[in-house]
């Protein structure tokens, strides 16, 4: 498994983690190049179905990251997201999907170093798990979600 490079889909909130990831870049922090960043306006934009869909579309791991609780640009979006996604995390584990395949984190715009740490930790964990086996079997129609 040493040569396995996982694909990790990261949904980042526009106001905190996306800026944090940008800061990590401009500050020259090194972190694994395995994440594919998707920018969303708020972590509460994440429909739990996106997470399963990402896994079915071939992602080996999913990361959702937003502002720290209490610091949401929209006042309460991340609180809403937390309720949904903490429950989702438990449900996925119950359904037999390893809890390391879906992670959530709070990274603010000033935490470039934390972003690098989070990505390193998530990537290492997914590397240990190996490739995700739950993928769409019949891809007969190219479609964007």
């Amino acid at each position, binding site marked *: 498994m040493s040569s396995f490079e996982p694909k990790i889909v990261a949904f980042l909130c526009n106001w905190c983690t996306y800026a944090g990831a940008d800061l990590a870049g401009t500050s020259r922090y090194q972190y694994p190049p395995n994440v594919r960043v998707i920018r969303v306006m708020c972590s509460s934009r994440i429909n739990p179905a996106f997470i399963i869909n990402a896994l079915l579309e071939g992602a080996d791991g999913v990361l959702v990251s937003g502002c720290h609780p209490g610091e949401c640009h929209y006042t309460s979006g991340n609180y809403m997201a937390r309720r949904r996604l903490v429950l989702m995390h438990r*449900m996925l584990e119950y359904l037999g*999907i390893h809890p390391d395949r879906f992670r959530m984190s709070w990274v603010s715009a000033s935490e470039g170093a934390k972003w690098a740490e989070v990505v390193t930790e998530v990537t290492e964990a997914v590397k240990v798990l190996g490739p995700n086996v739950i993928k769409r079997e019949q891809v007969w129609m190219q479609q964007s*979600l």
Partner: protein
Amino acid sequence: MDATKSLRAIAREVLGREDIACLIGYEKGSYGFRAQPCVLTEPDQADRLIFSPLCVHNLTNYLTLEQIGPLSKADIGKGKIAVVVKGCDSRAITVLCAENGIKRENLYVIGVHSPGVVDLKKIERRFPNAVEPAEVSLEGDSFTITCEGETASVPRSELVNAKCLRCKNNVPQGCDVVVEGPEHSMEDDFADIAALEAKPLEERAHMWQEQFSSCIRCYACRNSCPLCYCSECILDKLRPQFVRRSVDFPENLLFHSARAFHLAGRCIECGECERVCPQDIPLMVLNRKLARDVKELFGYEAGADPEQKALFVTFKPDDPNEGIL
């Protein structure tokens, strides 16, 4: 039998009123152990009504339909809908009203203290090939079953639906009129959920893979659910299309997790999804897992309080940060 008698008397009175458009209740089915839902509009039809342990359906599912039995949408608008509910069904009305799915003032709720309904799959296994309409009543701790001219007595615990063995409260809440009967309430200890959680991840993954692979995606679980009434459903949306049309494990996994998740904090555990499943997928094992987690994480219980807001439109700043980096 007494419940049937009082129910008929209530129905006769209710159907005679000007402000009632129809009454949704149960009537004798055409074969075997079937009772069937019926929609009555005239007082002289009241004697068709029955209430017995065969009345398994959750009739609140009809309340959100465009058309109820013979009544069109315009007819429904002319008056209130009277509906017969058991304890579990009444909680569906609480949730529906709380989330503005239906208006309470358009309903006339007739509650019945249900002593527990039978599990049709169990009873049909026990008495196979019953053709003539059979009768079942609960006397003491056993069901008295009259089937094909023979009478048998079977302990309640052997034929009763599993959901009734962990019934939170069989006293219907928020009713306009109640048919009294024995009361019981229990605490669900979620022992089976905890046992499944304690198993290794691979074993659980294997179990759900087997279960979801057998799903034929008939959508009966969604359609029979009184709380799945969105006019635009994620499960059959095409743009964007979340669940694709192939019926295989990956799509079914998305289908079932989306269905269960949309009921998180809303499912009142009437067990209709599991009852109608032609493949016997243990859907309640998933629904109850979410119900337990919602209670554990957020102290929230669906249908417990008519005033409480929906789970996912509220939050507490000190909600758990479980598993968040």
